[in-house]
Structure formats: C-alpha cells, structure tokens
C-alpha cells in the first residue's frame, strides 16, 4: 500500500513539475545553446580596477551591425571597444564622458552616434569627433536621432527638467539649431531611453510617428510618446509632449532597458520585476493612437549580471559577461524555432 502511494506521489510530482516548465529550465543561462560566436575582451580592460560595463549595438546605413562594449571603471578613463558582427575588434576609444549609446533609426550616411556625449561617425571606418555640441550638457547621455522626414540629425539630452536638442545638417553634420521642450507640466524629471520611427523602413510623414521612449525618474514608469515627424523635435518650454501626443504607458521599467528591434516596429524592455518583454509597436493613423502588443517574454534573471543588447532588424542579441569578459553572439531569445 505504502509503495503504491509513493509511486503515485512520484508520478503526480513529475506531472506537476513537467507542466510548469520546472524540468526544462536550466541552471545555465538559456542563451548558451543559441551562441554562435564568442570573443574574449580580457586584454582590452584593466582587470585590477573595479568597473561596470555596458553593451550597445548600432547598425550603419549599409545594414552592418556593430557592438559597443563600454568599460566604466570606478577610477580612470572610460573606454569603449567596438566590434563588428563577426566579433572582430574595430576600434577603441577612451574618454571620461563616454556614456550610454542612444541612436535612433533609420541612419543615413554618414552614420552618427553618440556614446555619452561623444560623437562618433561610422562610415566605413570610425571617426571619433569628441563632444557633440557644447550647447548640451556633456555629462549627460545623448540620443542621436535622424529625422528622415525633415532630413536633420538631432542630438537630444535631458537636463534640468527639459529635453534639449541640437540640430545638425545632414552631410557635413554642421550645427544648425537648438532648443528644448518638456514632457509634462508637472516638472517631473525623465531619462530619454530610445527613439525610432513607427515604421523604420519607409517612414511616411502622414502615417508614421517618431516614437520617443522615456522613463520617469521618480517612479520608473516607462512611456512611449508618438510625435509628428513633421514637427519633430518640438520647441518651447510649454510643449508637454506626453500630454499633447498619443502615448503609451508600460509600467515600471529598468533604466537603460529599452531596445529597438524589428527595424523599429518592435521594442524589448525590462520591467522592474526582471521580466523582459518583447512588444510589437505600431501607430494607428485612423485612431491617432500608439499600440503595443506583447509578443513574448522571458525571465531577465537568466542573464544574471550580464549585459544584453539586441540587433535592430535581426533576431539576434549580444551578451557580455563582465566576469569573464566574454562577448557572445546569439540568436535572440524570442526567435522560437518550434
């Protein structure tokens, strides 16, 4: 009798755990089976200096992906190492004002990016131009965004309660104009997380919007605001973008966790609880509203303290392990082969 009960219990337990993915979850990071290439960057960083790392991706106008690994030591100069999609190191650059890489899409030639406040041109080779614009604070992270409708590059940075922008001419990247606007009327601070067109491939001035992803500093709420590309970026201290444009509220997100994917028609973000979610984003012209459909999610803890960046229009991702300095090129977690 006891034996039968034990056997029954084992079967029930087995069935229960089988049903809740308990068995197939691994103690190793889930991305390992999807790794295609590995590069070790040990020799590029000072191991003796306690440091933090970040990782970003960018795609140039030829569709080539580049990976940026940013080294942020507690003391000493910051450094970025740039690798191509084969994980061959292309460039290194040191500057104390290196910060997050925020570059909107699409990107015409010459490709311009900012990492922190440092401007970088990417047109066959790397050119580091130093400070982007002295009109904007150099200790802030800048977002470089090319408004294809207007034909200008913009550098955007949040400072003192306003979103400042500087406009550059396409071609010689000469400075053209600068101004600022606000996101809401309450005086809240925001961080600018990312930006793209709602349809990256063929942005239509009538049907598409510039989607600006921001995070409210006080409570971590994430927002997407869809702005008219014909009048982007807006001007004036009383222009409250979140209140005057279609917007979508995601809930609490982690800072620096918004990644543009699917050529701008998708976004990956990490919530405060560690869930990493993939959304399909689109702008409904008829209703004048932004829509986000969640297509997949995974557990962010699988990445532990590793840094993750996603490719713009390929279901690929890069994972950097700060402990071993290994950089993994992988298929993205949502690319379900079954």
């Amino acid at each position, binding site marked *: 009798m006891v034996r039968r009960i034990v056997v029954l219990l084992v079967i029930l337990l087995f069935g229960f755990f089988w049903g809740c993915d308990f068995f197939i979850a*691994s103690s190793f990071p889930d991305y*390992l*089976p*999807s*790794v295609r290439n590995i590069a070790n960057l040990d020799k590029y960083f000072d191991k003796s200096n306690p440091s933090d790392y970040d990782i970003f991706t960018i795609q140039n106008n030829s569709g080539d992906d580049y990976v940026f690994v940013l080294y942020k030591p507690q003391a000493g100069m910051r450094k970025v190492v740039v690798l191509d999609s084969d994980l061959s190191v292309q460039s290194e650059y040191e500057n104390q004002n290196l910060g997050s890489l925020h570059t909107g899409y699409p990107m015409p030639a010459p490709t311009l990016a900012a990492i922190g406040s440092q401007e970088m041109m990417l047109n066959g080779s790397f050119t580091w131009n130093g400070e982007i614009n002295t009109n904007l604070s150099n200790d802030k992270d800048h977002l470089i965004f090319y408004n294809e409708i207007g034909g200008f590059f913009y550098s955007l940075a949040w400072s003192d309660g306003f979103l400042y922008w500087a406009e550059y001419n396409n071609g010689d990247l000469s400075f053209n104009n600068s101004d600022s606007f606000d996101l809401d009327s309450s005086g809240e601070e925001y961080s600018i997380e990312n930006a793209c067109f709602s349809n990256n491939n063929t942005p239509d001035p009538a049907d598409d919007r510039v989607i600006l992803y921001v995070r409210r500093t006080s409570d971590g709420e994430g927002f997407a605001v869809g702005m008219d590309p014909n009048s982007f970026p807006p001007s004036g201290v009383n222009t409250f973008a979140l209140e005057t444009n279609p917007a979508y509220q995601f809930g609490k997100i982690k800072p620096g966790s918004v990644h543009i994917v699917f050529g701008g028609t998708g976004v990956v973000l990490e919530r405060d609880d560690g869930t990493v979610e993939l959304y399909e984003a689109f702008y409904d012209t008829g209703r004048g509203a932004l829509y986000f459909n969640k297509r997949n999610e995974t557990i962010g803890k*699988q990445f532990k303290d590793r840094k993750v960046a996603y490719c713009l229009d390929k279901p690929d991702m890069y994972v950097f*392990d700060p402990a071993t300095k290994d950089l993994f090129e992988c298929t993205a977690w949502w*690319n379900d082969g079954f």
Partner: protein
Amino acid sequence: MFVTQQKNVFICVVFFYFISFQLVSLNAQAYSVVPNQVSIFSDVRLQSAAENTTYRSVLPRNTGSELENRGYSTVPGGELSLLLTGQELPVQGIPPANVINIMKQQAGKQMSKFFCLVRYIKQDNLVSFTVFFWNIDGGLIVNYSAPDAEGLAIYNRLNAAVALFVKKQGEGKTITIAGGKNGTGPKQYVKEIILYSKDEGAEIWLKGKEKLGTIKNGQLILPYMPLTVGSTIEIEKKKKGSYDSTETLSLTGEKSEIRLLPMEKIYGSGLYFTWTTGQFVGLGVGYLGNVDERFVYWGVENYFFLQASKVHDMHPVIHDDIRGLLLVKFRFAEGFPFTISYSYGAGMIFSLLDAKNAPLYVDFYVNPANLHLEYAVNDYVFFLRIEYKIALGLGKNLLGSDLIGIIDGLPLFTLGVITRW
C-alpha cells in the same frame, strides 16, 4: 602413677573442652540462618546439552524470581549432578536421604533456612517435572509433581509450587501434589514466545541484558521468562551487516508468535542513477562506498547532460558534472521505509558550446548541503534529493559565483535509484 593420672585428666579436660567447643560451634552454626532464605538446587537432565545449559540457568533463576517476588531471599545451590560426584540419582520420586543431606549441608553453609530442588527430566519418553522444598533440618514442606508439564508450561507449575511453599512452609506440613494444574497462581504467564524473522542469523538480545538466542530457520523460540500476558518486552536485534535495532514486542497471549520487522541491511556499496531538474536531457551515474560500516558513505557522481532551448538554430550545449560526496544516513524508526540522508561535497561542471571560438568552460562549485529523502525496497533505494550547490566563479566559467539552481532561486531536485550490495 599420679603424674600419669594427672596427664590423663589433663588430656580428658582438653578433649572435653575441644568437644564442647565443637558442639557449641555446631549449635552456633545450626542457629545462624538467614530468615526466609532459600537455597535453590536444580536437577536438569534433558535431551541436548544446549537445553541442559539453558534450563540449568533459567529454572533456578525463575524459581528465585518467584520466591523473591514473595519476600524471600535466595541463593543458588547449584546443579545437583555437580554435587553428586559419581552418584546416580533416580529420575523420579523423592531424592534419597544422602542426596537430601548433601543439599542440606550446602544450604547450611549458605545459612539458608530452606532449600529446594527443581527437577526437570526428559529421558526415554519420560518427562518429569517436580519441585521440593525442605526446612534446613530436612523436613519436607512441598513435594510438587507435574508429570505432564513440558516446555514453557513448566513455569506455570513452578509458580504454583512456589505458591504452595509460601502457603505451607509455616505450617510444618508436608504437601504432596501430583499432576499439578496450570493457572493456580495469581498471574497468567506467557508460556511460549516464538519470533519469526527473515534475518537469518540475527542475534536477539533482551535489551541491555542478555542474549536470548539466534534466528535459525526463520524463527527463534525464546527461553522462558516470567512474563505476564499483556506485558511488553524490548528486544534488540544484532546482525553483522545490518543496523542494530530495537523492537518492542507485545505479548498478547500465552503463546505469542511475533513476526519481527526486517532489519535494515548495511550496504557496502551502491551504484545509482539520477535525473536532475535543470539538467533535463541527461543522466547521472554514481557510486557509493561505505566508510564506517554504519552510516557514512563516500561517493563519486557524474552527470552528463545537454542543454537545449527553443530558439531557432540552436546548438545543444554539452555539460558534464563531476563531483565527490560524503554522505551520512539518518534512520527513522525501525521498519519505517523512509530514510533521510545528508551529503556534501564539491565538484566541477565542464561545458562545451558548439560555437565559434568557444573555449572549454569549467564551473567549480562547492556542495554544502544535499538533503535526501530515501525509500528502500529490498536492494533498491529510490530517492529525492534537494541540492544546494554554490558556483565559485573561478576561472573560465559560465555560472559566476552564485547558487546553482533553476531560475528564481529554486534549488535543484534530483530523482534517483540506487542498486546496492
């Protein structure tokens, strides 16, 4: 002449005083008895040396217990055959006077007020059980005979005989009872206890006291003990290669047949197979060896597994986990099929990725605690193990320094089966 007479008188006086002294000594000896002390003699002649040994020990002891329960003190007088060197003693009837005199002298030396003889004889189909009580002066008090009594039934007769002695010893009468019947005492005694066990060769001990016997041919008939029906005894089982265990036996009838719980074997070695959560496509194999012939085992274990994922174009990662363990078993109550074990150890996991430029990753870890819940069926043990493994983050590794578990901090669970010998 006068001198000669004086000399003779002196010799007579000395002789007189010598004789007087001896008489006084004898008188003093005759009156120096311990009140209510009984010297107990036995005359056991059974059909095997083993039986003789058992009953020559048990009968005087139980007679003593019966008397002591009634306020008497006792001293062992000895086996009669050892006192009667070269003398033949009839198997039936009251012993001859010279035999009684030998017992009387022995009892006198022991300063007993009474002496008794318990005779249990089986010879040539003749069975005889008799009990005699005498005063120290040789006066017979009780002549109790139970010719039909045999085996454990004799103990009820013994109880009856002692009861008669107690009743009659003060009256100076000789009581002769032939064909004594059972149940005359105030208590109902267990006549026979038979233990059945599959543990052939197991020694059965009265806990903390003495060995009662050995399981042979699957059973053991316990020597008689003055145990009443409804009482319990605690026995201890000992067998080389098994864990010592105790068991409390309830004696529910005059004849108690009790099936003992099987003893848990101490296995010297074991080969086991495991399957662990978080290591889905894989199988572990391990070996356990006993360290102390009791509870401690050492072990080595290897778990090979593949890590897959649902992503498109995935390449399974090959992992191999090798570790060493020290295991301690904790047993529950006798007969309970479950056992708890605790183990700890250390190991390493090798990982090989099917990717360009992939090195061989090695995650070293310590394994401070594994808790095993085990269920034994014959030579097999099925177990569930909760594992706490902590990766050390040394060298070229994939897990960092962290608890090795499933996402959300769940530790690893292992199901396994051990085949042991």
